[in-house]
């Protein structure tokens, strides 16, 4: 990185911390610290909601996802706009009316203390773990680029944002997210422009799309249908996006305190609602554009040789292992295929521009891409060997590698700042929500019942700090989770369905009481977690699994084969059905 890049990066990061501290002045009580005295206009609420959801993971993994799997990931957000309308009708007015600090307070009013505590515990567990992953995401940038120790990088990375989050609470979080968003969008727009500029003369934006489209990377809409019918294990298609995405969005924005805490800072119900509705309208186009950058990077690497593996640290590991010779053979073949790829893509563009038939170069280009992918798989197989023990997933490194190798001085620094700031936006909101839930739903309920306002304020700061430290510790173990964006979404889907189910029962099934909901939540959560770890359990404890009744084995196998996005819907619907049945049983017993 050049001196100019360091200056741009340093000024951006220090500027955000200083701005956060400058905006830290709030009243010294829970209302000021966690809800910014409920004074925020809708556009700040909107930016805060978007800044909380769009973490560094979004900007690191999404372009990589488009590069490897195409743009179909955008379908994941199709259920979000509908969920925003339902939230505005049901959740938002109730939370505002009750003047709650956390979403879970409502559950005590509706059910009982134990349901409230269980739900806040599930939230703390899920959000605490995923915040750790969010800290790890920008840390891999530094460690990969400069060979820094990942342990210390995580600590420094998480530590800087803790400064203004502890100091200013929700107000500092919202104001810094506003500034972060401006920098992020400037950075991404300039990158998209630069990708096209870096292509050979005569290749324009439409040509770029034509290349990635013909090679199957602009597959925005997919149905999930195969010759054998609908593939339930297919992660991203229009149906999993609309149905699964609807439940996930409803759960994330309606019951995850990191989001509820953002729109509770609004000065009125209307301001909260407008912020959420606008989010529903801009999220899909925004995600489409981020993925498009990844598809354009894919085209760029048709004209230029892509690295065999985007994480160079892993290449260096193999280079110094006994598989060095195999690596050299793979690399030689890879270079020769890349040269062929360049010729073919140039032929394709030439034929396409002059109106000739392009089937021949496209078929040949697809074949060469298939062969390069095979070589990449061969390399990944080496990484997975026991005596190498490397990380065989480089999705998160694709966009970053491109930036460092091809972006001009100054822009590299700006784009690395973009990754940092995006990450800080979501981590800061998460720490604020983790602290508010711990203080309001646990500490003030079970540990210290009578606190003065000054004590509340002080305890809140300490909990924010403690969650920051916890998240950094989790970040140290996040290394081998594959695509980070998927890791966070998978983790969320394990818990969100049940949490959403609890709230849906609370809002719409008035006859159901606390005991039925509490027992159902525990049972459904156990089933969902078991289904997720089922393949692992069948390998580790086959003798125990074999002793189980066959219908349980079949049921769990079926559950284990379902893509994670469906778990949100299954968890929520499972909760509704089980609560209903349990309530009937409990009622009968009482009678």
């Amino acid at each position, binding site marked *: 990185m050049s001196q100019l890049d360091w200056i741009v990066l340093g000024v951006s990061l220090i500027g955000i911390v200083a701005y956060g501290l400058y905006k830290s002045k709030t009243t010294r009580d829970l209302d000021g610290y966690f809800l910014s005295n409920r004074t925020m206009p809708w556009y700040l609420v909107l930016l805060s909601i978007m800044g909380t959801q769009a973490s560094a993971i979004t900007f690191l993994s999404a372009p990589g996802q488009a590069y490897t799997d195409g743009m179909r990931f*955008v379908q994941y957000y199709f259920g979000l*706009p509908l969920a925003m309308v339902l939230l505005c009708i049901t959740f938002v007015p109730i939370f505002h009316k009750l003047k709650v600090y956390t979403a879970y307070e409502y559950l005590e009013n509706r059910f009982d203390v134990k349901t409230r505590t269980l739900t806040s515990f599930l939230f703390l567990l899920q959000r605490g773990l995923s915040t750790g992953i969010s800290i790890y995401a920008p840390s891999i940038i530094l460690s990969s680029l400069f060979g820094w120790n990942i342990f210390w990088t995580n600590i420094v990375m998480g530590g800087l944002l803790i400064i203004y989050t502890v100091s200013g609470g929700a107000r500092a979080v919202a104001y810094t997210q506003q500034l972060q968003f401006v920098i992020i969008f400037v950075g991404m727009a300039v990158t998209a422009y630069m990708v096209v500029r870096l292509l050979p003369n005569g290749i324009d934006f439409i040509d770029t799309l*034509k290349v990635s489209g013909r090679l*199957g990377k602009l597959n*925005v809409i997919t149905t999930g249908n195969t010759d054998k019918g609908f593939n339930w294990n297919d992660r991203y298609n229009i149906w999993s996006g609309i149905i699964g995405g609807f439940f996930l969005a409803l759960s994330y924005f309606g019951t995850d305190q990191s989001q509820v805490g953002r729109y509770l800072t609004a000065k009125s119900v209307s301001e909260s609602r407008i912020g959420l509705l606008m989010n*529903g309208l801009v999220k899909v186009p925004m995600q489409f554009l981020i993925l498009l950058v990844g598809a354009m990077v894919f085209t760029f690497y048709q004209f230029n040789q892509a690295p065999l593996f985007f994480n160079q640290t892993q290449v260096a590991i193999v280079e110094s292992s006994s598989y060095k010779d195999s690596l050299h053979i793979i690399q030689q073949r890879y270079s020769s295929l890349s040269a062929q790829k360049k010729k073919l893509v140039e032929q394709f563009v030439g034929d396409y521009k002059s109106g000739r038939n392009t089937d021949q170069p496209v078929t040949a280009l697809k074949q060469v891409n298939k062969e390069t992918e095979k070589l990449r798989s061969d390399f990944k197989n080496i990484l997975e060997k026991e005596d190498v023990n490397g990380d065989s997933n480089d999705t998160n490194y694709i966009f970053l590698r491109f930036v460092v190798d091809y972006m001009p001085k100054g822009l590299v620094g700006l784009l690395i700042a973009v990754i940092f700031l995006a990450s800080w936006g979501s981590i800061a909101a998460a720490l604020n929500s983790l602290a508010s839930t711990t203080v309001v739903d646990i500490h003030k309920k079970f540990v210290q019942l009578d606190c003065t306002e000054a004590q509340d304020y002080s305890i809140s700061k300490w909990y924010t700090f403690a969650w920051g430290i916890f998240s950094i510790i989790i970040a140290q173990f996040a290394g081998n989770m594959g695509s980070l964006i998927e890791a966070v979404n998978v983790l969320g889907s394990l818990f969100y369905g049940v949490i959403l189910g609890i709230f849906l029962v609370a809002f719409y099934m008035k006859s159901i009481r606390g005991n039925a909901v509490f027992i159902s939540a525990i049972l459904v959560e156990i089933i969902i977690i078991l289904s997720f770890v089922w393949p692992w359990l069948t390998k580790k404890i086959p003798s125990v699994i074999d002793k189980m009744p066959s219908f349980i084995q079949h049921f769990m196998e079926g559950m284990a084969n379902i893509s994670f996005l469906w778990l949100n819907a299954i968890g929520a619907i499972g909760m509704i059905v089980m609560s209903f049945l349990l309530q009937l049983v409990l009622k009968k017993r009482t009678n």
Partner: protein
Amino acid sequence: MSDEIKEKVPVFRSWNLWYAFVILFLVVLIILFTFFTNYFA
């Protein structure tokens, strides 16, 4: 309080209109994306 909340449907007259608008928005997006996918494929 609840009456005040009921009155404030932003932009449109009722929430049903919001549902209709969002469904229309999604349908238009899906049509455009399908066209985009097919055109460049």
